[in-house]
């Protein structure tokens, strides 16, 4: 597949998009992992929310 004389611009556009999208996905997944860890710590220390206590 030939990208023609302006191949650099096409590649750059796809590279920037990939970079931003990968960044978003990484941010979401890392944030989730960190939040799960902190919640696990808090629950291990016996701190529960009111609604959890009435459910459980």
């Amino acid at each position: 597949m030939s990208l023609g004389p302006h191949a650099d611009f096409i590649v750059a556009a796809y590279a920037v998009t990939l970079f931003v999208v990968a960044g978003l996905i990484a941010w979401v997944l890392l944030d989730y992992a960190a939040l799960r860890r902190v919640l696990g710590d808090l629950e291990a220390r016996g701190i529960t929310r009111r609604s959890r206590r009435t459910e459980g």
Partner: protein
Amino acid sequence: MPLALLLTRRLVMAVIDLANPTRFLALVNRLLPWLWAATAVLFVAGIYRAMGAPDDYQQGATVKIMFLHVPSAWLGMFGWALMSVAALGTLVWRHPLADVAGKAAAPLGAAFTFICLITGSLWGRPTWGTYWVWDARLTSMLVLLLLYLGVLALYWTAEDPGRGARAAAILSLVGAVNLPIIKFSVDWWNTLHQPESIFRMGGPTIDPSILTPLFIMTGAFTLLFVTLHLAVMRNEILRRRVRTMQLMQAQALAEAGA
């Protein structure tokens, strides 16, 4: 009872049901793996079709940038529209998850608006001979990005999350006036940016060999947005739980010390 009325009632009940964060989280946890998988499949299909799409008779292979630029432009606008609907949910109906939905949409919409501007600029240099021009379409999209940054700043700097959410909701509604301006900018003003080629009277002017990959890529990007949006909403709900529990912990320590 007419079918439309029944379906509307079901939809309204579903939205009210999902106001319970725990129930919402349970649903999201079940849905997300499927959404990630479907997004990946659509992107594979879309990229494959995009790479196989023919060159444009005037601009050659640079037309392939359209498969990134157009979907991200739509999502930038869709993100703000979502924030505006969420703002109504926050301010008018007080739906508990409305401000979570709005806050989650902001960084995603901003990112796609940014992608739109960068890919557009990289497309403009070889085809128009310039990276940028202050025409109505480009300028109004830049304004959209600045509005997104404003909303993000409101969330980031708010001392009280509730007040930050209300301020962001108001800015979301006020900024919504920019959406029809962006859409009709190419009609109302003389712009370097081309006029509408898809959603126009008389149907699309783009050949199916390029239009079909565009629709697949748009579907892929949209599904990515939806997936990320639900994941960010989940994170925000968990973050609020952490905050509540930390406040309870602090309170318990203070009482024990007193």
